[in-house]
């Protein structure tokens, strides 16, 4: 199923943040959304997840209009967000954090999924009983991703995964994303680290002051002189 955003506009009070944004993420695709601070990237993810009110346009996932659903139904439909800044439940254990990701699920496969997630992220198995707030930044980001996986996403929205992490940690997180993608999950990643995002994604959109200004295959954007000038500093 495709996630499609059509002519989406969003505002905080009187301040318009997104203007007629349209984008599409196909089944099993990896798409990057890049742009500078304040371009509206997180707002766009928030609007998809139903956390930000939209003023116009629509968000569809397959035939379902997500913008008419409350946040919990959006999560249940398979569109799950890994929020910026990790946002863990600091005084709960890693295990409890992961189980919180499955909060809305009523099926009997939660334990089996936990085992699967821990098999993918062996570091977290070692840390399973630790309080999430006591982990290192890289480990916390792993918990945040794993917690989202526990909701059984078909479309994962990842906001600023690399923020504040050493490049070597980012590389290992990207390896994890590759595995997640291989298991059949589409990924929309929002990144300020343009180089990393464009090397990892298949396609990309550039968001500038609330508008999509450029789109195309990621490698093409990587060679685009405008992108180079604006974001890569070369």
């Amino acid at each position, binding site marked *: 199923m495709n996630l499609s955003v059509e002519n989406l506009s969003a505002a905080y009070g009187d301040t318009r943040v997104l203007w007629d944004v349209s984008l599409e993420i196909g089944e099993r695709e990896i798409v990057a959304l890049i742009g500078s601070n304040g371009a509206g990237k997180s707002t766009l993810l928030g609007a998809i997840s139903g956390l930000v009110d939209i003023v116009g346009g629509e968000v569809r996932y397959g035939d379902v209009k997500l913008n008419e659903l409350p946040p*919990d139904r959006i999560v249940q439909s398979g569109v799950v967000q890994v*929020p910026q800044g990790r946002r*863990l439940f*600091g005084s709960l254990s890693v295990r409890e954090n992961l189980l*919180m990701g499955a909060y809305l699920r009523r099926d009997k496969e939660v334990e089996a999924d936990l085992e699967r997630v821990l098999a993918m992220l062996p570091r977290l*198995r070692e840390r399973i009983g630790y309080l999430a707030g006591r982990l290192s930044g890289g480990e916390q980001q792993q918990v945040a991703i794993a917690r989202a996986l526990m909701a059984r996403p078909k479309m994962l929205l990842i906001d600023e995964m690399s923020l504040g992490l050493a490049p070597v940690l980012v590389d290992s997180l990207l390896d994890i994303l590759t595995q997640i993608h291989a298991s059949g999950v589409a990924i929309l990643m929002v990144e300020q680290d343009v180089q990393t995002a464009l090397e990892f994604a298949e396609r990309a959109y550039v968001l500038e002051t609330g508008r999509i200004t450029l789109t195309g295959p990621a490698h093409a954007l990587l060679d685009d002189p405008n992108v180079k000038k604006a974001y890569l500093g070369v």
Partner: protein
Amino acid sequence: MVAVPKPRRGAITGKRWVFLVSLGLMAGLLFVPAGHSDYLNLTFRNILMYAAMSYGWNLIGGYTGYISFGNVAFFGIGAYCSAVLSKAGVDNLFADVGLALIVNALFAVAVGLPILRLRGHYFGIATLGVALGLTDLASNLDFLGGSGGASIKQIGEAHFTTYYYAMWAVTLACMIATFFIARSKLGYAFVAIRENEEAAQVLGISPTRYKVTAWAIGAMMGGAAGAVFGAANGFIDPPTAFAVDNNVFPIAMAILGGMGTASGPFIGALLLSGANELLQQHFLKLHALFFGGIIVLMILFLPRGLMYLVGLRGGMRRWLSDLAVFRV
């Protein structure tokens, strides 16, 4: 396949053995009326009453992280429920508590929906406003006796004992309800909101729904204690129903014992009431000063309460490194 360790629930109910000790102490408190002392009955009934109110506050303040300064409103409403029923000719503790539960749940949902949108100190101030508003309202409603108050018919001769057991039962119910709520998915939603409301929302946990639920269950706890108090006291007026002490003590008790734990409010109520009783006997004029001092010291050096010390691993060094007061 390596087995996933069993969940550690220590963080959400406090240490299991402390809860068992608390239950044991509760069982011991059943024998207070055997002392045939009205003073003892009254003193321990007050301790139980504060414990029940503290449990009510603990759900919203301790578990959900919304610090309320207005939970006395529910206590007062509960007490007035007894007065209204008594005036209507119904003098039955079950009816008193039942009405208090219903009225408080409805009131809490109606008030909670707007004010639980506020966060931090804005929420705290709004709750204070609710309590003050109700005090004024009760003073001006004639059918509640206005500022002159209303009397409540007492039941039977051995009423001290009856009311004591009633308060005991209410407190035990609050304690056990807290333990099971904390371990349930409901309790985890409360804690998730306390720890990170945005994250809870992203995972599809509707903050409004769960905040109002925590607030309403807490309101029912405080209301039940108020209903028994009203009936036991035989008289209720606005300054008694909405007393500042009844607002502050339960909060201080939950902090002392340990916010967001199932034993904290009870342990805190025992210790703080005990301390208060002793101070009042020996330093009548200064006891409030000591009491305030205890609260200040607790906030500075043991902000997470005695339950934190019980669960502490890493000893003194870990404790000191956790203290905000030593960070510049």
